[in-house]
């Protein structure tokens, strides 16, 4: 039988070591690579197409969740982290397991059993699980940064630098001070996860950063338009106008 190809992604070598050690007694698994940050992780996953990754959450530049957003067909995921606060989010994106550091070998082996079961039963169940990854549920905290992938280039953008967001079918286009970026997530997701004190949904197709708004004009009865400081003009819906009115009063 083919071995389960595994990649370990953690910024601490000792944390990777213990996973390696625990895995070494299970010959169903083969460690094909290790990464010490999210960027390396993305590269390795895309090149090597592993079946399973062990993923730390807190890593430099981009965290484990942000890394997953940038991968098209993520493998099975087991999170390993010292924080318990990400557990809900991890399961929302269908992680197979969530190991709290430090973990025992018994607990670790339980995770491996789950993996083996899923891997053996049928590969198709995997796909079903992964499709849900892109629709992950809102987190408790507002977004502080957003990661974009443009070919092989990864951009991490501070939400402070966003000017406005435009809906483009299943995607959203971000117009930022650092350029324009496309993201495969819904307007609803960003409406719910960006700081409502800073961002406002002014239209079905637009979310605007409040401090970028220069003025709001009436075009004709019940029809409004706002002008941004970069002189871009955007339409405003009726409900968007009433939200703006409430905010600026």
């Amino acid at each position, binding site marked *: 039988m083919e071995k389960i190809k595994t990649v370990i992604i953690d*910024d*601490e*070598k*000792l*944390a990777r*070591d*213990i996973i390696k*050690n625990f895995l070494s007694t299970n010959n169903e698994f083969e460690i094909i690579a290790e990464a010490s*940050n999210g*960027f390396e992780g993305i590269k390795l996953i895309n090149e090597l197409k592993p079946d399973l990754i062990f993923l730390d959450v*807190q890593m*430099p*530049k981009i965290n484990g969740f942000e890394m997953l957003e940038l991968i098209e067909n993520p493998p099975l995921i087991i999170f390993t982290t*010292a*924080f318990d606060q990400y557990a809900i989010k991890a399961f929302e994106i269908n992680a197979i397991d969530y190991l*709290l*550091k*430090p*973990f025992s070998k018994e607990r670790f082996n339980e995770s491996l059993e789950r993996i083996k079961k899923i891997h053996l039963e049928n590969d198709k169940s995997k796909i079903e699980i992964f499709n849900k990854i892109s629709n992950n549920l809102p987190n408790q*905290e507002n977004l*502080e*940064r957003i990661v974009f992938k443009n070919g092989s280039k990864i951009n*991490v953008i*501070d939400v402070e630098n966003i000017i406005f967001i435009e809906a483009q079918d299943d995607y959203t286009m971000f117009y930022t001070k650092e350029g324009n970026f496309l993201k495969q997530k819904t307007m609803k997701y960003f409406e719910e996860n960006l700081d409502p004190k800073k961002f406002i949904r002014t239209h079905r197709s637009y979310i605007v950063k409040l401090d970028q708004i220069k003025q709001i004009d009436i075009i004709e009865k019940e029809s409004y338009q706002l002008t941004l400081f970069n002189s871009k003009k955007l339409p405003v819906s009726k409900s968007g106008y009433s939200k703006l009115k409430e905010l600026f009063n």
Partner: protein
Amino acid sequence: MTNPFTTNRKIFASYTLIWLFIFIASIILIFFTQDIKINSAVIDSAIFTFIYFILGIGVWYTVRFNSLETYKTPKLILNHFVASILTSTIWITTGSLISLNILSDDPNYVLFINSSYIWRFLIGILFYIVLISIDYLIIYYNNFQEKVLKESELKSLVKEAELNALKYQINPHFIFNSLNSISSLTISNPQLAQEMTIKLSTFLRNTLSRNDSQKSKLIDEINAAKLYLEIEKIRFDDKFELIEEIDLECKNFEVPSMILQPLFENSIKHGVYESLEKVTIKLSCHKENNFIKISVENDFDNKSISKKGAGIGLKNIYNRMKLIYGQENLVEVIKEKSKFIVNIYIPNN
């Protein structure tokens, strides 16, 4: 506090009941001691008790605005003396005006009321005294209950603050990751695992016995903070290095205890945790005019988008320094393109 006679149903009911009792007592007293018809006695009692019933509710406000805490006793007595005379006068004047109007055809009654002003006046004063006593008791009871409530609230607030302080001192993320490193080392390098356990224990002991008001020698502070760095160094596999430039004369200088470690924690958190390359942390200490300048400097990428909660550690230091030395601006934060520097100035007296 609102008027309990109008807002508290129970108090209002008892109050009404007492006046009803006084009303009946008054009828009996007048009817049996004076040569007066029963219906005149009833009307007189009804008028006078009803008027005082209303006035009595108003007496609350004289008590409310003459609280025992804000006024001195002579002033209080004077206020109430004047108020009681006024109340009693109003009572008798309005009462007799109405009753004389209704019972003008009862000559016995007219005679009776004319002879009763003095003792009615005294009863009015007595009512007033009883009423304010009750009012003060109600206020006292309420304040007491509020105090009990506030005290328990305060207690829980203090507990929460203490807990937060502890949580802040012992960063759980750091502890659990260190324990994970130890767990890993027990397999690969038991000797180092043992060393790290000792370091972590010493570190925890130091943090738990931390006292914000204590001072210690700079050199001890440096050694304590280095312990923290050594633990992080084992975790991060030499992802950073420490350079020290400490003037000899600074080493024995007294500084607030635990002032350095938060600075290093800051360097590690924003420099090392967020960096892909090796980070240099520089600690320097020089005499500068009337100050000892301690400076912690680390490489940092000003493009990395900082996490929430950043700056809490620095703010704490700022507040502590202000508290200890009574001077502002003893902490200076400099953010350059690729360097993050915190300078602390300790007054040298």
